[in-house]
């Protein structure tokens, strides 16, 4: 059966679209792609799409959903139509992210030292001390170069007003970057000519950049540092990514039981005996890092690791304790942090946020549960949240009780009309809501991966893009500025 996919009957439905302007004309960076798709022979797009699906299966690009009965590993759903970001818009996003990361790092450092921002009353102290994410053993730590958060994945969304907003800062162990690299590989295969002609900025050097970032954290006297990636193991939802990144960087993939602290240094068990480890890219949560310092029942961590870290004998990326800046109630204060530490105006705005710990906000939230999105401050991955307009009265009552019981644990935000990107649905295109997670590396300098992970809510009308909740992903094309920036070229395979 051959089908013809074209954009002739594509409906914007009054949402902001990433590929078309409000009048339905393709945006400049997208026109070539749209023309090409419109002129494909019947059945060709379907053919390319099934080639991609086969490749995904063959390459074993999967993720795990906790508590799913059909088996934990799932194929990563991928949509063939990329999101395209114009050069001028990307410069704005990049500048905004760099500013935000600088402020957040200064904040984390302050929180674990003098706490001046609390003393000056800019961030309320009760909000911080009641945060589940503040880690006592991190007080007074001095991570290498004074940087706490080396790898960040910030979630951005575009609202119906056309502006880009920051939805969350993921500063613990953000995942998803391996899918960015794989999505790109698949797109270059599917649309080699359009890809090359569209002058898309490369993402392929991410593993090299990440390696350089980790390398510059090594203790001063080490010239050829040993770097490892510490994973919780094969049952973790992002295990695929851990193994992929370790392989791409050419570093060892280790579990807690592969490491031990000897004479105050962290060592890896090898067939040739213990080998000293200088930098650990850890993909396990703070709580499990070191049973001596954090959760005593952790079987995943390395006893004594925190003491070695405190004494500057090993570097950890990210530093423990960064979760405090990732708390959704603290998030509400990031614009104030930017004013306070940098004396600048925030370039990227926050989504307006009601902090339920503030009495006035709480009253408003309880009265408007049917309109707002309510989130638990310490959950990630789309767990523990209520999307007001799509919820039942029972669900709203349940959340009202939870908020009253522990207001500190909840925030609420208006339901955003997220922008959309055309997505293949059976034999035609329909708009589906997307967000964007760029990845930021902070080593000697701050570097932002051009593009990032575009997640798409595959269910019609759905606003939840998390892969654990039925989301998929798309490639993200950042158009190079005409002359000075490198673009990636698709070479025929």
């Amino acid at each position, binding site marked *: 059966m051959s089908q013809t996919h074209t954009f002739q009957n594509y409906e914007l439905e009054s949402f902001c679209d990433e590929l078309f302007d409000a009048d339905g004309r393709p945006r400049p960076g997208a026109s070539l792609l749209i023309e090409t798709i419109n002129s494909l022979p019947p059945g060709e797009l379907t053919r390319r799409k099934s080639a991609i699906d086969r490749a995904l299966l063959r390459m074993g690009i999967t993720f795990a959903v906790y508590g799913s009965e059909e088996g934990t590993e799932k194929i990563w759903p991928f949509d063939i139509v990329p999101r395209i970001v114009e050069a001028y818009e990307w410069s704005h996003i990049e500048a905004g992210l760099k500013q935000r990361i600088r402020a957040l790092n200064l904040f984390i450092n302050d929180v674990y030292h003098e*706490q001046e921002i*609390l*003393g000056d*009353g800019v961030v309320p*102290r*009760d909000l911080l*001390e*009641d945060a589940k994410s503040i880690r*006592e053993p991190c*007080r*007074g730590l001095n991570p290498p170069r004074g940087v706490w958060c080396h790898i960040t994945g910030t979630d951005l969304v575009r609202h119906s007003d056309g502006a880009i907003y920051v939805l969350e800062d993921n500063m613990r162990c953000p995942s998803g970057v391996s899918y960015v690299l794989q999505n790109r590989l698949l797109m270059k295969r599917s649309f080699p000519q359009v890809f090359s002609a569209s002058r898309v900025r490369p993402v392929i050097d991410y593993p090299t950049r990440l390696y350089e970032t980790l390398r510059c954290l090594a203790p001063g006297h080490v010239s050829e540092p040993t770097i490892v990636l510490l994973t919780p193991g094969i049952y973790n939802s992002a295990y695929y990514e851990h193994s992929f990144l370790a392989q791409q960087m050419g570093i060892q993939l280790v579990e807690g039981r592969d490491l*031990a*602290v*000897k*004479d*105050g240094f962290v060592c890896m068990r090898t067939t040739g005996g213990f080998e000293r480890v200088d930098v650990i890219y850890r993909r396990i949560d703070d709580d499990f890092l070191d*049973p*001596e310092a954090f959760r*005593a029942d952790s079987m995943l961590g390395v*006893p*004594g690791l925190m*003491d070695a870290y*405190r*004494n500057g004998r090993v570097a950890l990326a990210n530093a423990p304790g960064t979760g405090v800046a990732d708390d959704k109630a603290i998030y509400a204060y990031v614009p104030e942090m930017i004013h306070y530490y940098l004396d600048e105006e925030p370039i990227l705005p926050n989504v307006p946020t009601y902090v339920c710990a503030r009495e006035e906000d709480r009253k408003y939230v309880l009265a408007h549960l049917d309109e707002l999105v309510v989130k638990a401050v310490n959950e990630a991955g789309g767990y523990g949240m209520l999307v007001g307009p799509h919820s039942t009265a029972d669900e709203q009552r349940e959340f009202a009780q939870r908020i009253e019981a522990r207001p500190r644990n909840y925030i609420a935000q208006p339901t955003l009309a997220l922008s959309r990107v055309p997505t293949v649905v059976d034999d035609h295109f329909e708009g589906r809501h997307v967000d964007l997670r760029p990845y930021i590396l902070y080593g000697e300098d701050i570097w932002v991966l051009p593009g990032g992970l575009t997640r798409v809510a595959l269910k019609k009308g759905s606003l939840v893009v998390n892969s654990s909740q039925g989301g998929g992903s798309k490639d993200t094309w950042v158009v190079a500025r005409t002359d000075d920036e490198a673009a990636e070229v698709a070479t025929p395979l």
Partner: protein
Amino acid sequence: MQYKITHTTTYQYADPVSVCHSRVMMTPRNDSRTRCESHRIKIQPTPQVVERREDYFGNLVHCFSIEESHRQLKVTATSRVTVEALQLPPLPETPPWETIRDAVANAADADWFPASLTTFDSPRVLRDATFAEYAAESFSPARPIVEAAAELTERINHDFTYDTTATTVATPTDEAFQMRKGVCQDFAHVQIACLRSLGLPARYVSGYLRTIPPPGEPRKIGADESHAWLSIFCGSEIGWVDVDPTNNCICTTDHVPSAWGRDYGDVTPLKGVFLGGGQHELTVSVDVEPLE
């Protein structure tokens, strides 16, 4: 008053332990009333690595690792400490408790910032209306803070039964409160929860208590206790006042603090991780010897 304090902790393991990483908090603090003249920690077997550092609350922590096989771990902390008597204005002349609460909440007191750290929930002490209710009986409007605190201490001492079998180190504070039973750690946690639920800063203190032998009997060596009580912030004029609900008293020269934090979790005297060992037996002996 000067003391020589010897605190010995022994772990006896059924099977060999191959690795052990631990931390010790047994060094008396230098404070307005206490001075640590000398201090020594002896660890057997000798650790491969020993580091010392100050934690966030200013307590001295020794971290050590033993990387050779052992069946017994013995930590002996010996210190010589001078404690001066507490100087307090007459209790009815201390400030009304609400003024302290408000001065800390509104950043009006000179020491509001360090004090406010101990007004919030901590892992083992969660504020709750039932604690506030219980405390309100003593904390009537405008009552002088130390007078009210002393009465609350007395009530807890009276209403609660000292029972070493009712609770463990992991018993949540609200459970101990409902049972009205526990040991010094529970008593201190309950009173801290009461004070914090009223908005007052209160911290957990671990340390040593001198026990006076009954008349005519000699002092028994090693029979003293590793003890816990709490400290209440009474404004920067008076400072922190220690009270002991287990013994119903305002602490003066019989109590020697070694560490303070938000609750027991911050100041556990000895904690760590060991691999192997099987069944183990723990013995603790504390000797607080007054020196003339």
